[in-house]
């Protein structure tokens, strides 16, 4: 059998997905037996023009991580879609926007002002901001255009599969790679995980009645290691998050933050999580309810930590 041609690319991301890909350890050798890597900017020297010269659909599988926040990333998403038979949104950024997607609380102007003018460590007396074109004696310099809004890969091009996680757990990565190597891929559009139910299904903590009188931030209490974290007043997203990760965060006494995205059938993970959290508030008095809610300091950052660009509203409205 001819070896598979595999491409890996990164857009707006942190590099953690590449580490997650290497985390499969000695299984990398199995991958190398089955596939040739034709493009992987983080590890091998293949230029964009080399990818452009490849015939259409000549790459069997492309694992694309990172969100789309500038014109270069958009261009590469389009090109890799054209060159690849199967395009996989690998990791939360490509899937839902993830942490870079929280930039959707602002726009280009606000982000540039903050990053290039206002930060205390910035020394920029001339107020220079990035420009897409700049003339120098040697010719014209260009950089990609920075967009107002971070988009997911699915909002940019057609995506065949999703591997969720920030970053995807080793077992999830291998589940997808094994399916690719063996040619046993699930139906198109599948979010590939070991468990389509919520993280709670993977979590071994004891669950009883959920009634919360006060919410805490993680540094405010040391939670009991046996009891459900949400019942202890920590904003654990396990209740609204797809499982399959084997719940490593709750096992380490930290609440789930929701990186595997929504469970099947949910279109907006943040609204789902918000609804679950509000429902466990143990009060029927509007004033007391407001007091309890006041302890949730950053609702968008809590409920949409990984999914603001993929949410129904996608971004903040800036006046």
């Amino acid at each position: 059998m001819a070896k598979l041609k595999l491409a890996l690319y990164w857009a707006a991301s942190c590099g953690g997905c590449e580490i997650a890909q290497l985390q499969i350890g000695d299984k990398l050798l199995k991958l190398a037996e089955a596939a040739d890597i034709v493009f992987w900017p983080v590890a091998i020297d293949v230029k964009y023009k080399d990818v452009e010269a490849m015939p259409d659909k000549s790459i069997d599988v492309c694992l694309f991580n990172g969100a789309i926040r500038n014109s270069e990333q958009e261009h590469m998403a389009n090109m890799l879609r054209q060159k690849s038979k199967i395009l996989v949104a690998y990791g939360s950024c490509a899937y839902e926007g993830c942490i870079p997607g929280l930039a959707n609380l602002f726009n280009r102007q606000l982000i540039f002002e903050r990053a290039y003018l206002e930060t205390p460590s910035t020394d920029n007396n001339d107020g220079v901001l990035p420009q897409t074109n700049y003339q120098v004696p040697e010719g014209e310099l260009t950089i990609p255009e920075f967009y107002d809004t971070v988009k997911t890969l699915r909002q940019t091009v057609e995506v065949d599969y999703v591997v969720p996680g920030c970053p995807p757990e080793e077992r999830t990565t291998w589940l997808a790679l094994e399916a690719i190597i063996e040619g046993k891929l699930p139906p198109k559009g599948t979010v590939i995980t070991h468990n389509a139910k919520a993280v709670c299904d993977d979590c071994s903590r004891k669950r009883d009645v959920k009634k919360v009188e006060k919410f805490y931030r993680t540094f405010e209490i040391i939670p009991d290691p046996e009891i459900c974290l949400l019942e202890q007043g920590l904003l654990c997203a396990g209740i609204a998050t797809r499982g399959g990760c084997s719940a490593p965060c709750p096992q380490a006494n930290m609440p789930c933050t929701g990186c595997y995205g929504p469970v099947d059938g949910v279109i907006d993970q943040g609204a789902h999580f918000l609804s679950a959290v509000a429902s466990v508030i143990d009060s029927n008095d509007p004033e007391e309810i407001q007091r309890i809610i006041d302890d949730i300091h950053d609702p968008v950052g809590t409920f949409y930590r990984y999914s603001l660009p993929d949410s129904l509203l996608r971004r903040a409205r800036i006046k």
Partner: protein
Amino acid sequence: MSFEPKILGILCNWCSYAGADLAGTSRKKYSPNVRVVRVMCSGRVEPTFILKAFEKGADGVLICGCHPVDCHYAEGNYKVMRRIPLLKKMLSQLGIEDERVRLEWISASEGDRFASIVDEMTEQVRKLGPFPRNGGSNG
């Protein structure tokens, strides 16, 4: 043409829908801007419904349920009483005006109150203008 706001009304079957019905049967005049959907209980109203309404064309969403203590299912209205303030806190972070989402308790005998709330909300949302759809951004 002047802007006519579209307001989605989500009304509970037992009190508020009957209250809206009373406004109609007693020939009470009120703004035609509200489109009413009946649910069995205001406790059924999930935040996703409200966000989806905005995405699909609503400029405001009015949720009405039984007064506290009066819920047909004993405590469904308390669920929505907890969800809406948290949702509103989140919407304010996203730059969406407070007046676009409103929670009211309407009993089956409060036809007049339903009509005046619809009128008031219609005027408030008219002043705000259309809900900024498509992410409210061009880039």
